Every structure is written in structure tokens, then in C-alpha cells.
């Protein structure tokens, strides 16, 4: 099955997306990739990310009557995912940190995707080092900082959407993002 959401569905306005709650399979197809990606980036474990994704849609299905449309369907699903990931991380804190420090898969993938671009080998190596540094730094961030960092810089969500998804105030989100960016920049400075 192809996982990419159709552009037609992606362009749907929030009310239409809410209406999709009736057609749950369409909803899953539309957002599954996004939820899985966020879970994978947060947990760095494919099995755990898959479990969180399944649980996220199960919870959404069970609670679909309570969706109030005061946020987008995507934000609502991310809110569920954030809670599931938090529970998962807290239950398996030790294992998570062990994995977080060892995993380097996106960096390997980055090497392949960046090889296509017109850059000198030196520039490419430097950029790959920076991506690796960001990945390492993101893995070492405190839970809340990591969550808002990934929602902002991987999922492209704005501050208000992140605030709704995480249940934080917008100002708090900004503070966590600010600290996360500082830590990431320090990490880049230390490695390059």
C-alpha cells in the first residue's frame, strides 16, 4: 500500500477533514505517515513507532465523537501521539536513552539524499556532520524540548499548533524551542 497522502485530501479544509471522521480509513491513510514519522523521530525505534501509530488511530477512533473541531484533525492526532509517546518514553526511559545515543540511521539516509545535490565533497561532509550533530543533540534534549523541536523542525507546525498538540501555553512552547535550538547550536559548534 502506498502511504503518501493524496494532495487532494491534504488540501482539504479542516471542516472537510473533520467530516472524514466518518470515513476512518481515509483519515488513517491521510495522517498515518505523519504520525509514524513523528513517533519514529521521537522514539527512534521502528516497532515502538508502529505501536504508537496504531494506538494513536485506535484512540482517535474510540474518541471520534468527542472531536470538537476547535483544532485541525492533524493537530488533534498529534496531541494523541504526543501523549502516547510521552507515556512510552516514561515507561522505557533507560532503554530509550541507550538507543538514542547509538542510532544513526537518519544520518546514513541523509548521506544518500545529500549526495544528489550539487555540492563539493567537503561541503557535503560538513553538512552531514551538522545533520548528525542535530540528530545527536535532539536525542539528548529533555522530553518537552525534544517534542517541540521535532514538531517545529520536522513536522513544520507553528507555535500555536504545537501549543494545542502539547497542551502547553504558546509562551512555554517558545521557551522550550528557544532552549532546544540553543542546545542544538551548541552541539553543532562542538562538532564542527
Amino acid at each position, binding site marked *: *500500500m502506498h*502511504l503518501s497522502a493524496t494532495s487532494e485530501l491534504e488540501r482539504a479544509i479542516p471542516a472537510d477533514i473533520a467530516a472524514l471522521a466518518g470515513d*476512518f*480509513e481515509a483519515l*488513517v*491513510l491521510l495522517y*498515518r*505517515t505523519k504520525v*509514524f*514519522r513523528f513517533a*519514529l*523521530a521521537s522514539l527512534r525505534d*521502528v*516497532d515502538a*513507532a*508502529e505501536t504508537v*501509530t*496504531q494506538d494513536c*488511530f*485506535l484512540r482517535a*477512533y*474510540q474518541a471520534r465523537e468527542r472531536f470538537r473541531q476547535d483544532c485541525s484533525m492533524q493537530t488533534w492526532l498529534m496531541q494523541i501521539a504526543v501523549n502516547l509517546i510521552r507515556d512510552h518514553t516514561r515507561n522505557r526511559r533507560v532503554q530509550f536513552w541507550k538507543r538514542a545515543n547509538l542510532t544513526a*540511521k*537518519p*544520518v546514513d*539516509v*541523509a548521506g*544518500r*539524499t*545529500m549526495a544528489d545535490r550539487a555540492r563539493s565533497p567537503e561541503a557535503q561532509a560538513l*553538512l552531514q556532520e*551538522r*545533520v548528525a*550533530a*542535530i*540528530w545527536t543533540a*535532539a536525542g539528548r534534549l529533555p522530553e518537552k524540548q525534544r517534542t517541540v523541536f*521535532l514538531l517545529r*523542525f*520536522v513536522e*513544520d507546525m507553528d507555535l500555536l499548533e504545537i501549543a494545542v498538540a502539547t497542551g502547553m501555553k504558546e509562551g512555554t512552547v*517558545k521557551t522550550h*524551542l*528557544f532552549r532546544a*535550538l*540553543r542546545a542544538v*547550536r*551548541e552541539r*553543532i559548534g562542538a562538532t564542527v
Partner: protein
Amino acid sequence: MIAHLSSDQLSEYILGQPSLIVARHVQDCPACRAELAQFREALGEFRGAVRAWSEVEADQALEISGSVPQPRSWAVSQQLAWALLIAAVCVIASFVMPRQRGESTAGADAVLLNQVDVQVSRTAPSSMEPLMKLVVQE
């Protein structure tokens, strides 16, 4: 004009909410502009790398697990119903069976006690009862 942007000021700019002084400095300072461009490029590549990795893993992981997650509540409730039924049968059996056994034991005991009563209430053993009729009672 400030010398160069600090790490915090660069972060401010990346988050899209720079102060007026920071915004003006970026316009005028090629070094800080280059620094920002490098950081943005690294963040962009990071996003691309995570997305590419996720797509590779998703194609494998989510395809294996099937299309749409079926609600497990129905399966769970069926299992729960069976478990409750078995538990109920066990509870009823634990109440009914000892009572039945108790009732049959009590019946046998009553018959025995009656026999004992009859024997005890006799003035003489049954074999001597004909002789007792010959005894004149005062």
C-alpha cells in the same frame, strides 16, 4: 550596530521573531547572514533526513501491519464476555455442588438417626419383644 549576533539572537531569528535590532543587523552583516543560512540549511537537511528515513521504515513497517487498525474493543469485549461467563459458571458451581452434597449427606444422617431413635426407644430388643407381652405390667 551590535558586533555579531549571539547564539540566543540567532535562535530568535530562526524562530521568526527577531527584535528590530537583530533584524537590522542580519540585513547589514554578511557573516551573521551566512551563519543563519548554514544553520537553516542544516535544519532543512535534518528535516529531509528524518523524513526520508521515516518513509523507508514506514514502507516496511506499516505495510506489514495492514491497512487500517481495526478497533480492538470488540475483540477485547468478546474475550471479556467469555471470561465472565466462565467465571460465573465456576462461582455458581462452587455454591451449588457443596450444597447438593450436603443435602444428600444430611438425608442419610437423618435416616440413621431415626433408626437409632427407634432402637433406643424400645424397652427390649426386638427379638425379646414377644416375651415382653407375657410380662404383666403393674
